[in-house]
C-alpha cells in the first residue's frame, strides 16, 4: 500500500528529474514551441516541493490535489493547467484514504488522464503529453517499471507525428520530426514514479 509519504517522495523525485532534464525539455520545445517548457516545469515543481515541505498533506489524495493546485498557480502556459488538472483529478479520485493500492492509483491516474484530454480537447496521436500518459497508465497494470518504459516509448513515438494541438500545431507538417516536449516531461513523471517505487 502507498501512503502520503510515498506520494511526497514521488513529487520530490519528479521535481529532481525535471530539474536535471530542464535544459533538454527546453531544447525540445525550441524547434516546435517557444523554448520555455523546461524552465516552466522546473519552476512549478520547485514550488510543489516547497509547498510539500512547508505543509505536508496527510493523505495521498491531498498530496496530489495540493501539488496540482500549486502547478496551476506557478507554471503558466498550457502546461500549468494541464499538469495541474492531471494531478488534481488524480488526487480527488483517490479521495481521503490514508493509504491506496497500486491498482487504485492506476484507476485514479486514468481519470486524471481523461481530464487532461477533456481540458485540452486532445486525443492520443495529436502529439501531446497524452501520447506518453496514455500508454504509461495502461502499462501500470503490469508494474511501475513497465509504465516508465511505455511512457518513454510513447514520447519517442511522437517524433513522426504532426501536431494538432498547442503551439506546435501552427507549424503543420513542419512539426514532424521533433519529439514533443510535453510527452517527454510526462514520461519523466512515470520515471520518477518507478524510481521511488523501487
Amino acid at each position, binding site marked *: 500500500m502507498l501512503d502520503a509519504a510515498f506520494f511526497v517522495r514521488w513529487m520530490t523525485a519528479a521535481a529532481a528529474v525535471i530539474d536535471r532534464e530542464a535544459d533538454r525539455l527546453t531544447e525540445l520545445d525550441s524547434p516546435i514551441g517557444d523554448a520555455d517548457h523546461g*524552465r516552466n516545469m522546473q519552476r512549478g515543481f520547485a514550488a510543489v516541493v516547497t509547498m510539500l515541505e512547508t505543509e505536508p498533506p496527510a493523505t495521498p489524495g491531498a498530496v496530489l490535489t495540493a501539488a496540482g493546485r500549486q502547478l496551476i498557480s506557478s507554471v503558466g502556459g498550457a502546461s500549468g493547467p*494541464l499538469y495541474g488538472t492531471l494531478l488534481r483529478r488524480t488526487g480527488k479520485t483517490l479521495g481521503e484514504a490514508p493509504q491506496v493500492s497500486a491498482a487504485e492509483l492506476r484507476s485514479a491516474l486514468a481519470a486524471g488522464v481523461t481530464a487532461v484530454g477533456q481540458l485540452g480537447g486532445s486525443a492520443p496521436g495529436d502529439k501531446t503529453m497524452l501520447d506518453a500518459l496514455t500508454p504509461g497508465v495502461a502499462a501500470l497494470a503490469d508494474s511501475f517499471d513497465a509504465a516508465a518504459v511505455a511512457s518513454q516509448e510513447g514520447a519517442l513515438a511522437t517524433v513522426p507525428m504532426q501536431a494538432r494541438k498547442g503551439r506546435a500545431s501552427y507549424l503543420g507538417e513542419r512539426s514532424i520530426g521533433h519529439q514533443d516536449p510535453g510527452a517527454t516531461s510526462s514520461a519523466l513523471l512515470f520515471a520518477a514514479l518507478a524510481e521511488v517505487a523501487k
Partner: protein
Amino acid sequence: MKMLINVAETVVTDALRGMAAAHPELVVDAENRVIVRRDAPVADKVALVSGGGSGHEPLHGGFVGPGMLDAACPGEVFTSPVPDQMVRAAAAVDSGHGVLFLVKNYTGDVLNFQMAAELAEDEGVQVASVLIDDDVAVTDSTFTAGRRGTGATLFVEKIAGAAAEEGMPLERVEALARQVVASSRSFGVALSACTTPAKGSPTFDLPSGELELGVGIHGEPGRERRAMMTSHEIADFAVDAILEDLDPRLPVLVLVNGMGATPLLELYGFNAEVRRVLDERGVAVARTLVGNYVTSLDMAGCSVTLCQVDGELLRLWDAPVETAGLRWGR
C-alpha cells in the same frame, strides 16, 4: 547573445519595477504581476482585463489606463500568466458591473483565463470572456489549435476600452469586442528569429537570405519559408492573404506593427506599400497606426492587421486614450 538584463529569472520582475518607476499613474504589483490603473475600480464602469506572456510589450501592460484596459497580467516570457494573477486583477478592478477578459487564442492563455473566470465567479465577480483569433496564416483549424490572436488584440482592447469608458453595460462591451474580432484579420512575417532570455540563442535558425511568412508572435517559425522579398512583394502577399478572408465593404483601420527589431524607417516604408495594395484592391483606409505595439522580443519583421469599421467602431477608436503605449485625444 548580448542582452540588457541581469539574469533570465528576474527579467519580468525587473521590467515591472522599471514600469512602476516610470508610470506613477499605474499600480504595478511586481511580486504578483498585476498592473492596474491607479483610479480602479472606476465606479459604474465595466472593467477590462487582459494578459499574456511577456515579451510583447507594450502589449498588455502598456495599454492599461483610461480608455483602454483596467488591468493586465504579464506572464513569464511567452508564457501565459496563471489564474491567480487574473483573479487578483479582476477583484482589483471590478466596480460591481462585471469584468471582461480579453484572451488571445493560445492554448495556455485560453486554459488559464478559463480557470480564472471560474474562480472569479466563485468570488462573486461577473465575468465574460472574448477570444481574439485574427491570424489568417492559420487556415485549417481542424488540424491546429485554431487561429492565433495577434495584432487585432490592440483594436479589441482600444475599442472595447472606449465602450466601457462610456459606461456601456457588460453585454454591449462584450458584443463590440466580438464585432472587432470578427472584423479583423492579421498576417505576420519574420526576417529573423527572436531570442528568449531563458534560452539565450535564437528560437529558430533563419538564414540571412530568407524570410518566414505567416509567423505568430512567439518566435515560432511560420507556415512557409521563402527567399527574401522586397517590401513591395511582402505587402502584396500579406494584404492579399488577409483579403482572401476579409472582404471589407467599409473602411478599415490599418495596423502596421513591428515585431521589435525593425526600425520605423522600414515600417513606414512598408506601410506605403500596404496603402498601395489597399488602394489597388479598392479598400478604403479610415485610420492607420504604424509602430511597435505587439512585439516578439528582438524579432525583425512585421505584421499587418486590418479591421473593418462602421461609424460606431470608428468613433470608439478615435475616443481619448491615455496609456503608456497608446495615447491620444486627452
